[in-house]
């Protein structure tokens, strides 16, 4: 039986096996304590988050949250690339499929066809700053690579990592769905490149997590 297109868009399972603290906050706490225009991230069992300290309820997200059986898992092992990839998979139910598809549509409006084709097929697209002529490789669920363009080769400058609102500790997963994270970084780069560099963490070439 061929899958229907609607199946691809099916959002979260009805019997969720993860804890959607974002929904709890939105429903019960936010009306009383304040609304967040960016929404409240979904906290996954055993996956603490790092949010901007001034984000409402930021401290609630910083500790590992128990899974539905009440078991508090160990924090992710950030020293192990395999563990990092595995944790990334574990976080993925936090993002809605519809959100990601909407983000893809938004991204398509902002970049050219070749860039979008590259992104859709490979999860990365290149862009060159009109201001500084610095090249960037925007990557899905990975830090953005900045490089200096030379006639014969390109030179690595830095890997820039920033996540609006926050991210899951020890992973490359942001609170926003992956393509929205990429879109935010791209728009920041074209709008104010200096600001983009300033708010991003810069990872060195040797950081093995850049390449896993």
């Amino acid at each position, binding site marked *: 039986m061929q899958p229907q297109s609607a199946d691809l868009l099916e959002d979260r399972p009805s019997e969720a096996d993860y804890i959607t603290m974002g*929904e709890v906050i939105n429903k019960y706490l936010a009306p009383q304590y304040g609304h967040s225009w960016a929404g*409240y991230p979904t906290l996954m069992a055993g996956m603490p988050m790092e949010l901007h300290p001034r*984000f409402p309820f930021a401290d609630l997200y910083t500790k590992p949250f128990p899974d539905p059986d009440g078991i508090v898992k160990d924090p992710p092992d950030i020293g192990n690339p395999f563990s990092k990839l595995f944790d990334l998979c574990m976080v993925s139910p936090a993002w809605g499929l519809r959100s990601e598809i*909407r983000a893809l549509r938004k991204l398509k409006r902002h970049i050219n066809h070749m860039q979008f084709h590259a992104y859709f097929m490979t999860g990365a697209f290149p862009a060159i700053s009109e201001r500084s002529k610095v090249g960037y490789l925007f990557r899905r669920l990975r830090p953005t690579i900045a490089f200096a363009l030379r006639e014969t080769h390109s030179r690595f*400058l830095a890997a820039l*990592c920033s996540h*609006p609102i926050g991210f899951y500790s020890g992973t490359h997963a942001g609170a926003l769905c992956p393509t929205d994270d990429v879109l935010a970084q791209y728009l920041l780069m074209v*709008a104010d490149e*200096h600001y983009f560099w300033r708010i*991003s963490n810069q990872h060195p070439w040797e950081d093995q997590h850049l390449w896993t």
Partner: protein
Amino acid sequence: MGTLEILNVQGGDVKLSFNSKDASEAIRAKRYIGEMMKVGFVLLVEVNRDGETAYERALAFDPARGEYIIADFEGANGHTNGNTPPAVQSGGELPAVSGTDEAGPEPETDVKPRRGRRKRVPMEEANATAVGRSAGG
């Protein structure tokens, strides 16, 4: 009609539209934008630069006039808005360059950072995207 698209965790985004003919809607929109700027959202305003769509970060918002205040276009040295590119920032703001066998970017000493002019963009005429505060990564 201007719009403001807010990158949002749950639905993907929230979109606000501003109708200048509806006074109550305009007042509400001004309040929302003011609130967002206050809590640290970055507002990226779509502008037309030489016939092409470009973006500028809103440096401030004037709620009385309902206008985004952005850096103005300046063509000096090929840089478009008074911001110097990352490689030529001074005052300790050079981007960290790491991990290559070559030296870091060579500063273009003839380029001096300077404060750009400001330009106002009415919110009813602009499309903008709001991005939450970054927590690093």
